C-alpha cells in the first residue's frame, strides 16, 4: 500500500471532504454570494420609501447600486469572506473531538493536506466568486440600467502604474490577477491562523499580522537609518533607468516572487502544522 499518496484514495477523500465542506458551509457561502441581491433590495427599498424610485442626497440621486457601489461592496464582501471561511472550514482541526476524528480517517497526511489546500485556495474562492457574479448578473437581468459587469470592471483595472521623467509603464497584470493574488495571500494567512490558534482564530491572526508588521516596520526603519538614503535612492533610480525597457517584466517578476514566497512559505508552515498536530 502506498502510504504517501494514492490517487484513487485522494479522489475518494477529496469527494468526502468537499461534501463535508458543502454540508457545513453552504449557508455561509450562499449568504455572502447573495449580497448583490440583498444590497439591491435594500437600496431599492429605501429609494421606494424615499422619493419614488430614487433617493435624493441634495445633488445626488440614487435609484440603484451604481457600478462603483457594486465593485466596492464586492471588494469588501470578498475580503470578509476570504478572511472568515478558512477558519469556518478547517478550524475544526484544532478541536479535540473533531480534530481527532479527522486525524483518524484512513487517508495519508499528504492527501488530507492537498485536499485542504485545493478546497481553500481554489475550489471555495472560485465557487464564491462564480456564485457572487451570478447573483450580480441576476440583479442586472432584472434591472437593465445596472451598468457593466463587476468582472469586466475589475479586470479592466491596472494593477499599478508609474511615471518617471515622462516615461510611463504599467504592470501587465490586470485586476483579475490582482484578485487571484489577493485570494492566495489572504487565504494562506488565515488558513494558517485557523490551524494554529484554538480559539478566536480570525482576531488572533489579525493581531499577529499587526504585531508582525510593527516588528518589520521597526526593523526596516532601523535598517534605513543606518544606510545613506540618498545614494541608495540614486542606485534604485539608476537601476530603474537601466532597465526601463523591461521594467514591467521585473516588477511583475518580483511581485510574483513575493506571492510565491508568501504562499509557499505559509503552505509549508501549514503542512508541518497538519503533519504534527496532536490531540
Amino acid at each position, binding site marked *: 500500500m502506498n502510504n504517501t499518496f494514492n490517487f484513487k484514495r485522494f479522489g475518494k477523500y477529496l469527494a468526502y471532504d468537499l461534501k463535508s465542506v458543502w454540508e457545513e458551509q453552504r449557508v455561509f457561502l450562499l449568504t455572502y454570494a447573495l449580497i448583490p441581491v440583498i444590497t439591491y433590495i435594500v437600496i431599492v427599498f429605501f429609494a421606494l420609501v424615499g422619493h419614488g424610485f430614487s433617493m435624493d442626497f441634495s445633488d445626488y440621486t440614487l435609484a440603484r447600486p451604481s457600478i462603483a457601489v457594486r465593485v466596492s461592496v464586492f471588494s469588501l464582501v470578498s475580503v470578509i469572506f476570504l478572511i472568515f471561511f478558512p477558519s469556518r472550514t478547517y478550524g475544526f482541526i484544532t478541536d479535540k473531538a473533531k480534530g481527532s476524528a479527522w486525524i483518524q480517517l484512513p487517508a495519508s*497526511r499528504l492527501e488530507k493536506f492537498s485536499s485542504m489546500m485545493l478546497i481553500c485556495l481554489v475550489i471555495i474562492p472560485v465557487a464564491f466568486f462564480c456564485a457572487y457574479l451570478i447573483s450580480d448578473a441576476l440583479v442586472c437581468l432584472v434591472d437593465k440600467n445596472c451598468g457593466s459587469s463587476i468582472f469586466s470592471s475589475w479586470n479592466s483595472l491596472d494593477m499599478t502604474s508609474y511615471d518617471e521623467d515622462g516615461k510611463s509603464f504599467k504592470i501587465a497584470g490586470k485586476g483579475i490577477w490582482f484578485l487571484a493574488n489577493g485570494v492566495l495571500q489572504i487565504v494562506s494567512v488565515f488558513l494558517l491562523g485557523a490551524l494554529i490558534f484554538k480559539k478566536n482564530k480570525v482576531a488572533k491572526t489579525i493581531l499577529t499580522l499587526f504585531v508582525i508588521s510593527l516588528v518589520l516596520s521597526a526593523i526596516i526603519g532601523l535598517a534605513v537609518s543606518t544606510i545613506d538614503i540618498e545614494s541608495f535612492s540614486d542606485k534604485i533610480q539608476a537601476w530603474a533607468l537601466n532597465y526601463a525597457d523591461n521594467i514591467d517584466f521585473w516588477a511583475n517578476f518580483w511581485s510574483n516572487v513575493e506571492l510565491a514566497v508568501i504562499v509557499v512559505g505559509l503552505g509549508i508552515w501549514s503542512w508541518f502544522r497538519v503533519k504534527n498536530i496532536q490531540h
Partner: protein
Amino acid sequence: MIEIKDLAFSYGNVPVLKSITTSLEEGRIYGLLGENGVGKTTLLTLLCGLKKADSGSICTDGENPFDRTPSLLEKQYYLPDEVAPVAMKAEVFAKERGAFWPLYDHEIFLTIMKEFENDPSKKMNQMSAGQLKKTYISFGLATGCRYLFMDEPTNGLDIPSKAQFRAAVMKYTPEDSTIVISTHQVRDLENIIDPVIILDKQDVLLNASIEEISEKLYFDYGTTQREDALYREALPGGFLQVCPNTGGEESKVNIEALFNTVHAHKELIKGMFNK
C-alpha cells in the same frame, strides 16, 4: 500486536507517563484502569497516534502510530470520551466515513443501532449525549478494525445500553482484534475485560489475565476476617477480601477490589506478578 517500550510522555514540564513497557496481544479485550490523571487517555491517544511520545516507542504491526499511515489507520479505531455532534444523519455519516475502512459493514452498523434502539435517520447534532455515544460505538464496531481503543465507552449510557454494549463488543469484533477499554466503570465491563492493565504514574502496575490474577490472588466472599487479607471490604452479611492464593483455590475476580488491592500494595503486587 502492540509493543510498548520505555514509553514516556509529559505535558510541558509535568510528566504523565514514565518508562511504560508492556505488550498488547491479539484476541484480547484489555481493561485499562487507573486513578484520575495517571494517563489512561494519554496512553490511548499515544496508541492511536494522536500524540507523539517524548521518548520510547510504540510499535503496532511494525508501524509507529504517530506516522498516521493509511495502512495502520484503516486497522484501528479510537472512540474518545467526548465525541463530535456532526450535523448529519447518523446513517449518512456512517456510510460516507465507513467507506475509508475496508472492513466496514453498514449492515452491522444498522443492526447495532437497532439493538441500541437508536434511530440512524436522526441528525447527530440533535441526539442526546448517550445516543451520540451509541452512534459512535456502533460505527466503531462496524469498522471491523483489528485495534479498537475506547475511552470510557459506557459513560452516558443508560442501564440497558451497557448490557447491549457488552453484547455488541463480544459479537461484532473480529476474533483476532485487540481492544483496549479505558474505564472507571469497572462493574459495567467486568465480564468482558481480560486481561486487566492497572496504570500508575510511573509504571504499569499490573498487566495480567483474569486467569493469572485468580491463580495468584484469592477473592474471598466469606463471613470471617482473614489475617492474610491484602484488602478487605464489608459487604451485606460478610466481607470481600483479597488474599494471596497460597492454596491454589479458584475464585471470581472482583476488578474493583483488585484495583484497590493493587493500589494499596503496589510493590508487593508487582513482585508477585513479575515473577
